[in-house]
């Protein structure tokens, strides 16, 4: 049994089938990538899996339990964490506080204890701070820990969001275009980071446009076009699939190797 099973998932927006009948699995220690042209429904799929949108059809099974339509914070409690394509960093907080805020599930305690600054509250904050420093170091941001997130570079924010998502200690991590807008060096770093997270036993679901990155680190690829799954399989198979090449390059791209 897989950690995550998506079964026939679908949703409509104003009568338009944004995503329809998509199924796939994800397992610990493996990277599953979702690719497809712009508007194929990748982010919408992520939003359904993470509970931001309530799916119109189909099921999301996490660890054998049907979690379809649960609120995001309930899914987070079950070990799901994510990043966002358009960045949802907490801009009024420092880099360190962002990652600390990501530890919410591990550190939450009674509001009364927090108001009164009781030892239990202080101890949790101290522990959270240690963990956050470690995670910042892992993504290469330990030097900017006290800097406000609003004054960090785009590439740094991308990594900060990954560190924050990791702070929740996820079993399943959804990364929505982590390398978008990053230069070659930054992309290389993200590549290493994803491999490191994956080798720690986390199941990763990745949406990414950088095909080099996708082909290199994915163990399984799901291809979407116009909201439906047109192909899936290991990178080598998918990159030679006629339907995939057609979706990316149009119907007459016979000898294209764009996905290589």
């Amino acid at each position: 049994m897989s950690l995550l099973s998506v079964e026939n998932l679908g949703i409509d927006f104003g009568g338009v089938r944004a995503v329809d009948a998509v199924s796939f699995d994800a397992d610990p220690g493996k990277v599953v990538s979702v690719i497809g042209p712009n508007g194929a429904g990748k982010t919408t799929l992520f939003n359904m899996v993470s509970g931001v949108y309530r799916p119109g059809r189909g099921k999301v099974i996490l660890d054998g339990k049907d979690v379809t339509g649960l609120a995001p914070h309930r899914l987070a409690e079950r070990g799901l964490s994510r990043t966002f394509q358009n960045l949802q960093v907490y801009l009024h907080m420092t880099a360190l506080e962002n990652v600390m805020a990501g530890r919410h599930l591990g550190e939450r305690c009674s509001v009364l204890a927090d108001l009164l600054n009781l030892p239990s509250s202080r101890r949790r904050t101290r522990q959270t701070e240690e963990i956050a420093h470690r995670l910042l170091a892992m993504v290469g941001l330990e030097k900017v820990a006290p800097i406000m997130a609003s004054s960090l570079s785009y590439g740094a924010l991308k990594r900060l969001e990954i560190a924050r998502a990791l702070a929740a200690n996820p079993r399943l991590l959804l990364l929505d275009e982590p390398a978008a807008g990053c230069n070659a060096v930054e992309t290389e770093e993200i590549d290493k980071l994803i491999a490191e997270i994956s080798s720690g036993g986390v199941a990763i679901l990745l949406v990414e446009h950088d095909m080099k990155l996708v082909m290199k680190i994915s163990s399984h690829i799901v291809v979407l076009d116009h909201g439906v799954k047109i192909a899936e399989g290991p990178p080598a198979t998918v990159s030679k699939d006629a339907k995939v090449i057609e979706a990316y390059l149009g119907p007459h791209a016979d000898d294209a190797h764009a996905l290589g």
Partner: protein
Amino acid sequence: MSEFLQFAFSGMTVGAVYALVALGFTLIYNASDVVNFAQGEFVMIGGMVTAFLYASGTPLWLAALLAIAIAAVVGVLLNKLAVEPARGASVVSLIVITIGASIFLRGLAAIVFDKQIHRFPAFTGEDPIGIMGATIVPQSLWVVGGGLAIFAALYVFLTKSVIGKAVLATANNRLAAKLVGINTNHMMTLSFGISAAVGGLAGVLATPITLTSYDMGISLALKGFAAAMLGGMGSPLGALVGGFLIGLIEQMTAGYLSSEYKDAAAFIVILVVLFTMPRGLFGPRVAERV
């Protein structure tokens, strides 16, 4: 039945004033995302200027036109001097700015005019007309008719004229409007001008019935705001329906239940509607994009 009709008439009359204030809110909100809490002051300016000019011997029609023009100028100045410089400010900053403007205009009116209550004669006589056992003063017909006429005129303007379409485009997507060559700043100024003129007109129409004073604006702004939210912010039809609904609820409550709690009834209805329809009766149903 005649009793019900009587309450309905007075409800429609105050409702038309609320609807005009709410329409003013909607116009400005659509063009600039600003909720203008000084909207009630435009109504006050319309009424006060007309009353003072008329008292000094100006013919009523000319006094009314001048009052509407002055309200429009104040609206344009408000946008140019207070709202445009604060572009991109948070919702709360904008609330503070427009409430500041409201307090400022109220203080100004107390000095320029006075702190007394004023009125001027109804346009077409004061003799009540009897309809099925209930009576209605002719000015009420002016108010309700004016409200509907303004709504119709705005509808035609926004959907048929080029400038109106530009205002709607600005409301819809400011960046896209800019890209197709619309001067969105002009559209905002225009919206403030029209909105203030509509408010001024509401003051001109309603003053023979409701009377006017320097401090009448804030309670009208609150009711108009509530009406706009009840209908669904940004929807002109919502503003019209919301305004009439609040007027009717208020007067029915006053008539059948308790005149002290007429204001409470309106706000209870708003709370109940928002709890069940968080975007009002005619508001857009959109999912948040992430």
